[in-house]
């Protein structure tokens, strides 16, 4: 991939790289060490600061908050995909009555910052007597924003298929819905899966915006726990642990995306074998010789 950029190093270059490597190690270690020293010096590594991890009540509450985050994520993800599918269908429609509004909705919702949307639902709507809980406001915001992004992904996925697929399906006498459901969608979904999952990672990260309107999720708990005097106000340790939890959750999702992509590729390699098997059934003479 990127190693085509440089030649196989000769003795001089190897020496230079080694010197640079040493400098690099010193530099990186210096930065990490300095930050680590600041942590140590300001007493963040003191055992007292980490004691809270041992309490089962805190562990349970932490798990509860992770669930709250995941709940917003799960509901937001499902709704965003539905909303995205509807918008994509609208954008792909042949009728301008559907295409126009869908395009405008996608453009507008993608241009408005998610936080402003969440504020709009949580602080703005009570003015016309629509009251939403923090959870609903976060989920609706996530749905509208990510749904619009996903609509573009869906549309691009379907447009990326060769035209011949649609033409062949029409030639076989299929109707518009049949072409979409039986021919285009199954193929497009495979192409789109990695992109969809990485958008879901974005959605998972954006649930943390709920913190700003006091939705009782993971980051909100971090702030609460970090202010507890009985544990020596362990804000820094708590932030580190919560960051690790977020990174782990997102990496698990990303890992899922990579696995899906790999499976996707393997399936493509399998396709010729499948057709051969079909040929074998179709031509008995060939199967006899096997």
């Amino acid at each position, binding site marked *: 991939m990127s190693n085509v950029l440089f030649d196989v190093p000769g003795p001089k270059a190897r020496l230079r790289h080694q010197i640079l490597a040493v400098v690099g190690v010193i530099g990186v270690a210096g930065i990490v060490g300095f930050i680590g020293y600041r942590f140590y010096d*300001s007493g963040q590594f003191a055992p007292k600061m980490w004691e809270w991890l041992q309490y089962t009540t805190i562990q349970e509450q932490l798990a509860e908050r992770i669930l709250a985050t995941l709940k917003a994520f799960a509901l937001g993800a499902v709704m965003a995909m539905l909303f995205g599918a509807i918008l994509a269908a609208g954008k792909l429609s042949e009728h301008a009555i559907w295409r126009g509004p869908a395009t405008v909705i996608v453009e507008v919702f993608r241009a408005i910052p998610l936080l402003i949307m969440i504020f709009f639902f949580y602080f703005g709507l009570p003015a016309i007597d629509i009251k939403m809980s923090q959870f609903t406001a976060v989920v609706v915001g996530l749905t509208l924003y990510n749904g619009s992004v996903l609509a573009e992904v869906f549309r691009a996925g379907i447009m990326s298929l060769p035209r011949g697929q649609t033409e062949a399906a029409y030639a076989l006498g299929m109707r518009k819905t049949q072409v979409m459901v039986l021919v285009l969608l199954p193929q497009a979904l495979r192409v789109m899966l990695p992109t969809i999952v990485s958008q879901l990672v974005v959605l998972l*990260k954006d649930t943390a915006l709920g*913190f700003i309107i006091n939705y009782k999720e993971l980051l909100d708990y971090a702030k609460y726990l970090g202010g507890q005097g009985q544990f020596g106000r362990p*804000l*820094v340790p708590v932030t580190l642990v919560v960051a690790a939890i977020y990174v782990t959750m997102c990496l698990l999702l990303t890992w899922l995306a990579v696995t899906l992509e790999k499976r996707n590729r393997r399936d493509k390699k399998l396709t010729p074998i499948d057709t051969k098997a079909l040929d074998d059934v179709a031509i008995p003479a060939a199967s006899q010789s096997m």
Partner: protein
Amino acid sequence: MSLLSTYSGLFLSAFATTLKLFAFSAVGSLLLGTILAMMRVSPVPVFRAAGATYVTLVRNTPLTLVFFFFTFAYPLLKILKLDYEQGAIVALTLYTSAFICEVVRSGINTVPVGQAEASRALGLTFTQMLGSVVLPQAMRSVVPPLVSTLIALLKNTTVSAGFSVGDAGAIQSTLSEEGANMLVGLSWVAFFFVVLVLPLTFLQRSLEKRWSVAR
């Protein structure tokens, strides 16, 4: 309309802060992102590993958490005092640079292998090859996704409103103190963001169209 004329000063100063945050962190993250991208394609494994670790960690951390760290946890470390606005710029820069790094790196990877090989054959050094052959070509495929990253940055500046910075996201809290109609006020904020973002989107689309033909 009446709300907008009553609070025109508030809207102006808030959006000025937003644009200031955007400008500073855009420049900062473009610089840091390019450095990170060069680290990730460099021949020295340590630099590659360091760049990759940074990008993986930051890309999988919510921006709100980065802000949280710089507002609440960072001051406890007593490294260098940052006020809320500077903290916001640092948080936005660190966060966005990871995405810029990935955009630049994938741009470098779209340049055909033959280009790098040919410049090596001509005896160019690594820096010369990167500077005068690979990067100028990579720019073409980099600029459209770069613009989308910057659009995302512009929208992300609103997160700083949750952390004591008086940017466009914070208009809401002032309006609420004054008892103004929040629905109207927030609609105006949303409207101005659409006005700011849409031209950038169109610029990105047209660049993408014009340059995709050239390749």
